[in-house]
């Protein structure tokens, strides 16, 4: 930031920093934090570090259900690729075409049950995912839809960057198939596809993976269940301003 013109904020900046220096004249010691809690790669309290993928998915599904997300599990054939494990957070780019048939069936089923007809389609959504959906109008975000336009649509279908099994969290980073944040916020129904290789054990794994993939400074949305409030007598009510229904297609 250029500071050629001294402004009140510049004065304030100098003064606050001087205050901080003065306040710390005793030079307090602050030994480095010890990271002896579970860090990335250590598994999670409910999962050993070497737990098989099925256990990871089982935990994620359980946690999602716990917080009242709807979950559809899509088994894939024995030929399903294992997928990359370290830099898989670049969204659903459609490379894993093997799964698309099963995903499409699950998506079509979900949309039918929901009764959704007009759906936001984020840029980069694998074409196959909507292949089996009948009577669905997919609305593209081009040119960008206004908030009011989004508000009258029935829902949105997205991929995700990754999911955290221990906490039942889905992370969106705006990558292909996810779109900008408003798309997964304004419509009342969010259907999201999670691939097995996108599931990590715990919060430390998620942060490490986002960083390794260069996604830390993107707009990120961490979603754990549908929007909810506990503001009335600590009574949990699902569905306030965010999508009131979160449905997850978990591809195994």
């Amino acid at each position, binding site marked *: *930031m250029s500071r050629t013109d001294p402004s*009140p*904020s510049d004065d*304030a*900046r100098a003064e*606050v*920093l001087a*205050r*901080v220096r*003065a*306040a710390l*004249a005793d030079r*307090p*010691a*602050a*030994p480095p*934090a*010890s990271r002896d*809690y579970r860090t*990335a790669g250590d598994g999670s*309290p*409910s999962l050993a570090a070497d737990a098989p993928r099925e256990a990871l998915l089982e935990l994620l599904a359980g*946690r999602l259900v716990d*917080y009242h997300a709807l979950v559809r599990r899509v088994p894939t054939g024995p030929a399903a690729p294992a997928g990359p494990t370290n830099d898989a957070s670049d969204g659903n780019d459609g490379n894993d075409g093997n799964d698309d048939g099963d995903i499409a069936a699950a998506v079509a089923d979900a949309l039918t049950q929901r009764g959704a007809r007009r759906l936001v389609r984020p840029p980069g959504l694998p074409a196959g995912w909507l292949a089996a959906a009948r009577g669905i109008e997919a609305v593209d975000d081009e040119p*960008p839809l206004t*908030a009011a336009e989004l508000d009258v649509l029935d829902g949105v279908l997205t991929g995700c960057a990754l999911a955290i099994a*221990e*906490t*039942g*969290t889905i992370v969106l980073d705006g990558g292909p198939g996810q779109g*900008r*944040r*408003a798309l997964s*916020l304004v419509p009342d129904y969010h259907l999201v596809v999670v691939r097995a290789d996108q599931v990590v054990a715990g*919060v*430390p794994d998620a*942060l*490490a993976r986002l*960083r390794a993939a260069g996604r*830390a*400074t993107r*707009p*990120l*949305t*961490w*979603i*754990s269940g*549908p*929007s*909810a*409030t*506990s*503001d*009335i*007598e*600590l*009574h949990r*009510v699902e569905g*306030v*301003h965010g999508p009131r229904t979160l449905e997850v297609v978990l591809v195994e």
Partner: protein
Amino acid sequence: MTAASGPAGASPATFLGLPAVVPPTAPRGVGMLRGDEPFPVAARRALGDAQLRRNLGKATGTIRGRRARVVAELDDWDQLRAAGAAIKDDVLAHLGDYLVQLEEQVTARGGVVHWARDANEANRIVVDLVRAAGATEVVKVKSMATQEIGLNEALADAGVAAWETDLAELIVQLGHDRPSHIVVPAIHRNRAEIRDIFAREMGASGGVPAPPGLTDEPRALAEAARRHLRQRFLSARVAISGANFAVAETGTLAVVESEGNGRMCLTLPDTLITVMGLEKIVPTWRDLEVFLQLLPRSATGERMNPYTSMWTGVAPGDGPRAFHLVLLDNGRTATLADPAGRAALRCIRCAACLNVCPVYERTGGHAYGSVYPGPIGAVLSPQLAGVADNPSLPYASTLCGACLDACPVAIDIPSMLVHLRAKVVDAGRGAGHPPKPERAVMAAAAWTMAKPDRWARALRAARLGRLLGRRRGAIGRLPPPLAAWTASRDLPLPPAETFRDRWSRQRSGPDGPDAPDSLNAPDPLDGPNASNPLDDPDAPGARDLQDARIGQDAPGGRDAPDEPDERTP
């Protein structure tokens, strides 16, 4: 227990190596850090409100139980907690460097950073930004910092309407009320009261009115809030938020929330203004792995809150086109200047200390007079605003230690309270009038001594006595809360045994719960039917509370469910 001798009377301003000029505290006449009346007066009134106490007891009991369950799920909770404390201490020790780093990163990614020395300056900055954006109304995400500085009032004075969008904040705003809890600000309202407020005020406020025949079902109330705010979200041009964390390394801001009102505000408007206390920094991206585990579990008792938003500067094509970050001092550097008080700045505002506090549970948040109630408020408000302006708050505690056990960043609130009580006395002496907190201390002492096990626990809290001893030399030999009494009087006291003997003489039986206390002082915190869940295992919430503490102290604490207060000094 021996009284340590030390540099008695040293104050931060004069102690060797400490600054001669202590940074200023938050200014008067703006914001919400000072009560209109002393804590005991406000507390006494709150205690007379049976409805309030029912609401509070139910809500805090529920949240304690939830927290206990999810904390117990993590076998590395103690390690996370220690790391959280250490990371925040590092932030405080190098705060200047981290602030500059944060500014660089936010700026490099298209944000604009503003510095505010105090509430007035922050309010001015925000008002100017809103005007520059040409807006006459703003949507707000729940934010402690903006309440602390009285931003809504400043905006109103400038002709800008500020709409609170968090459900609880909406209840508070529509009810022309004040928040009473950090995480659930309308905790003092029950569903029937909320229904009445919505039915009466939603339309009157100029927004979408509540539907006719609105019931007090929480679901119906949430739906009414959704409809009331929907249009405001979709048409808002400026949003104002706080921040839970700011990563110095990357310039990333994080807001955790539940309802989606945060996402709406952070995503839809063109301009986003975030007001953040200086201390909200974490050094590195990786540090979020600690706090994103500690905060949701401590705050709402969830494994993860429904929504966490993170953003770094401006992202073209996604969200606001202008991002302003206002870094707020308002007494934080004054707090930082006190080595014995600065750890209060570790606070991540989870409110776990409120939910376990026997005093908070009875009085509610309003009695504390500040936007920060409960144990953290008792140590933070007097430091931000100066002890002279909040002299009774450091006495708003029984020093039972439950807050320390619950705190995810291990802030030693009890020791800090004792320290601040001494500062209250010093401040009173400097101002030429005698210390007034005595009455509150006596009440706390009476409360402690009203039951033998409370007294026994007070005796065990020996390290507080030692802390006092360091400061006061030979006088500080009594355990709290009587130690505080020594601090307030600055006189040699009879030895502890005298008090105990006197109490024993006067109590009526072996258990003596109904005996008049020896000090014959009215106890503002112990009405005739009141029971402290710490003491009465059958009291509502008692089991939850103990469970919470067991989870906290795992694994060792699991073996000692009957001694929840026993800590290693």
